[in-house]
């Protein structure tokens, strides 16, 4: 079996100051297969990718590439050997053209002059091979959709005759139909003998696209080479978490029909992305917004919050109308937002946990403008303990926490404010399975305490499992509004896609 392996890894160890990021990873990848890597955040997946792609050097263990022990000094060396990684945060340079990005770092040149026509031609061929001939090599990468940027990243990975493609959660930023296109591309590549290491939190995807699965936990391989289609979900989750998960979504409590409307949105519209949005959320109710990326669902949420200026319509909290386009007014009225891009929009990454929690409630810790840091720390410590943020310690820098724990920090911020309306945009993106159910429970507990919750998610299962009522958004309009238990996943998908040319 090892003879057929394109890449095999044995006893890989990587230490960082104070942490053992990898402490014994073994697995092998065969030509033409999709090998899935599964593990919670912090299990060492990202480090493993960086080691495989030459961004980090391993401290111990060996990597065999086509049977020979190799040591890639840097990503370019790895790419020249045929191993390329596509990271979650795409490493493309906005402002440069598609072709420039594809050949960035290994420009085609003759005595220092770039051969631009050649680069364009080869880019076109690569994009065609990936099934996306419609992307023009001259376009500015910054103007492409995320899905298309991903395709460009793949073209870049293949530009040096890539034989192994490592993809870090490629589907996290994609719509269901874009995921289908991505899978088409992956199947195309594996048919040509290219191997793919595929990382995802979504078990359904792994079943659909994967051949074999390797599970990592705490920097160690706990199982390798499992058949992706046959292995039981409970077994995988058990391996990842070390415990058994049965019911992912918390029990709903019927919303009191007498509960007052807390959030009332009428006829909301912006300049072009959406219009005529009506939305009412009662105390204790969770309303889910389903829709494709680009359907306007995130924009609706941000406009309700005042982070974008509405062109028309009104937003009321507890019957009081809010001034348009002011986050400050919305927050004072009792609204809170957990934004879609947690790192770039939600957190002060290089600051302490407690500062991230109290940032929206500073005045309650201040007297004549002077902050009582001890009170801040004590209050934050209580919250992080309730939410089980790990590792504990409110003086830790947020950057070092895993996705799920970072999300809990953002939630703690609004918990502290005791807000009336909580808007959640993709609350579980980049959050592993274990922490995910904790976040669901937290959202439900907030609703049960009388908060009006609005959840936006690309994951239809999540919207249906979590929400009491579901709104479907398509092309900037609400096309369905009804109880969550009267609609199923396929019906939502139908509504989401209808009139959508796939």
């Amino acid at each position, binding site marked *: 079996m090892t003879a057929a392996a394109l890449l095999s890894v044995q006893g890989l160890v990587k230490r*960082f*100051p*104070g942490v053992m990021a990898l402490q014994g990873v073994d697995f092998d990848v065969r030509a033409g297969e999709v090998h899935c890597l599964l593990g919670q955040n912090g299990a060492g997946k990202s480090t493993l990718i960086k080691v495989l792609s030459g961004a980090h050097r391993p401290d111990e263990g060996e990597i065999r590439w086509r049977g020979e022990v190799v040591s890639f000094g840097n990503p370019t060396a790895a790419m020249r050997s045929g191993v390329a990684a596509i990271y979650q945060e795409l490493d493309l340079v906005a402002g440069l053209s598609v072709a420039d990005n594809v050949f960035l770092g290994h420009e085609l040149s003759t005595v220092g002059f770039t051969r631009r026509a050649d680069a364009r031609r080869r880019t076109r061929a690569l994009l065609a091979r990936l099934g996306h001939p419609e992307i023009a090599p001259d376009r500015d990468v910054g103007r492409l959709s995320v899905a298309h940027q991903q395709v460009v990243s793949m073209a870049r990975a293949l530009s040096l005759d890539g034989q192994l493609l490592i993809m870090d959660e490629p589907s996290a930023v994609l719509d269901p139909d874009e995921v289908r296109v991505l899978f088409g591309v992956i199947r195309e590549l594996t048919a040509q003998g290219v191997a793919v290491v595929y990382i995802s939190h979504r078990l359904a995807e792994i079943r659909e696209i994967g051949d074999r699965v390797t599970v990592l936990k705490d920097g160690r391989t706990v199982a390798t080479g499992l058949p992706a289609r046959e292995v039981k979900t409970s077994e995988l989750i058990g391996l990842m978490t070390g415990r058994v998960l049965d019911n992912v979504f918390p029990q709903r409590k019927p919303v009191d029909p007498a509960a007052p409307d807390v959030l009332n949105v009428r006829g909301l519209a912006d300049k072009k992305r959406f219009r005529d949005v009506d939305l009412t959320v009662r105390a204790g109710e969770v309303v889910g917004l389903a829709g494709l990326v680009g359907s306007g669902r995130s924009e609706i949420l941000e406009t309700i*919050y005042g*982070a974008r200026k509405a062109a028309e319509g009104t937003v009321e909290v507890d019957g009081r109308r809010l001034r348009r386009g002011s*986050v*400050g007014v*919305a*927050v*004072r009225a009792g609204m809170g*937002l957990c*934004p879609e891009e947690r790192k*770039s*929009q*939600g*957190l*002060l*990454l*290089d*600051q302490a946990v407690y*500062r991230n929690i109290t*940032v*929206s409630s*500073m*005045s309650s810790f*201040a007297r004549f*403008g*002077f*902050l009582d*840091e001890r009170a801040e720390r004590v209050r934050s410590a209580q919250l992080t303990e309730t939410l089980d943020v790990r590792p504990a310690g409110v*003086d*830790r*820098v947020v950057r*070092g926490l895993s996705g799920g724990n970072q999300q809990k920090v953002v939630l703690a*911020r609004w918990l502290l404010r005791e807000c009336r309306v909580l808007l959640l945009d993709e609350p579980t993106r980049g959050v592993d399975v274990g922490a995910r159910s904790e976040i669901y429970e937290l959202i439900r507990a907030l609703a049960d305490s009388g908060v009006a919750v609005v959840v936006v998610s690309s994951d239809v299962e999540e919207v249906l499992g979590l929400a009491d009522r579901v709104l479907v958004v398509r092309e900037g309009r609400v096309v369905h509004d009804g109880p969550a238990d009267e609609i199923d996943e396929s019906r939502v998908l139908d509504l989401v896609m209808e009139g959508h040319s796939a």
Partner: protein
Amino acid sequence: MSEDTAAVAAPQSTPVAKESSVAALLASPAGRNTGLVVALVLLCLGGVVTAGDRFADVDNVLTILRLAAVIGVVSVGMTFVITGGGIDLSVGAIVALSSVWATTLATQGIANDTHWIVIVFTALLVGGACGLVNGMLIAYGRVVAFIATLASLAAARGLAEIISNRKTQIVNVPGFAAFFDASVLGVPVLVVIFAVVAVAGWVLLNRTTFGRRTFAVGGNPEAARLAGIDVRRHTVLLYALLGLCCGLAAAMLIARTTTGSATHGGLYELDAIAAVVIGGTLLSGGRGTIAGTVFGVLIFTTLSNVFTLNNLSISAQAVAKGAIIVVAVLLQQRLARRSGA
């Protein structure tokens, strides 16, 4: 995080870990200042060795401090703007304009009729107004800070030349010079003002909501906005605060030189930014230290003093300054990398 690393590294100290714990200590907030203190002490030793008693003299030390006071006040303000993710190239020009406006015959006339404090108020008012304009342009006009303040640099100095007709304006207000020339317990008033500004700046940055917002706005403006902070208003306040510091510095400069002039404050923007950066404030925003800035100012001022005492030219001073900036930044990056990851 850096403190954690130090704490983790210390107990398991084998000979190897010992060195890394020293590095970790140097990278911790307190340690960064230790590095600056060491640099300053070395510089003073150099002064004593090369210039002997001429350096280690109370009057000479007071001269250094008096020189440091003016640029120091500007640098404290600059620390706020840079921590908040901005930059201001117009500080020198604002100092010049404030000094000229506060010493026109008309202003001096009013001051003579009423009270010398009018001169100080005028300088503060002009400086604050300039800062306000900068802030409005940047926050609401959405002009990039670098460009907006570059424009102010040109415009403010030009305006100062027009008002002063390119002449040096001598101050003849009796109480004014007397007040600033005085000493409190042997410490010149200028130095006392610098100390007060530095302490007030430290408290403002580290103990108040204003300071906390400054870190938030500089660290991640989008996250700060979505957390409910009025980022644009805060940006305006930061530049206005720096403008006020420039106004105060102008008043101090008028007192020290007994003149107002359109050539005052030359290259203050570079001196202030350099002091802030070698002090350990992150040029990209989100991290800032007033103590570091104060040390940065003292290091540069002491350096020029030692060079002057040794009859070395201003050009040689400039070269040494450049070298210090490069070494300091390289060292900081090293330490940051060690403590990070």
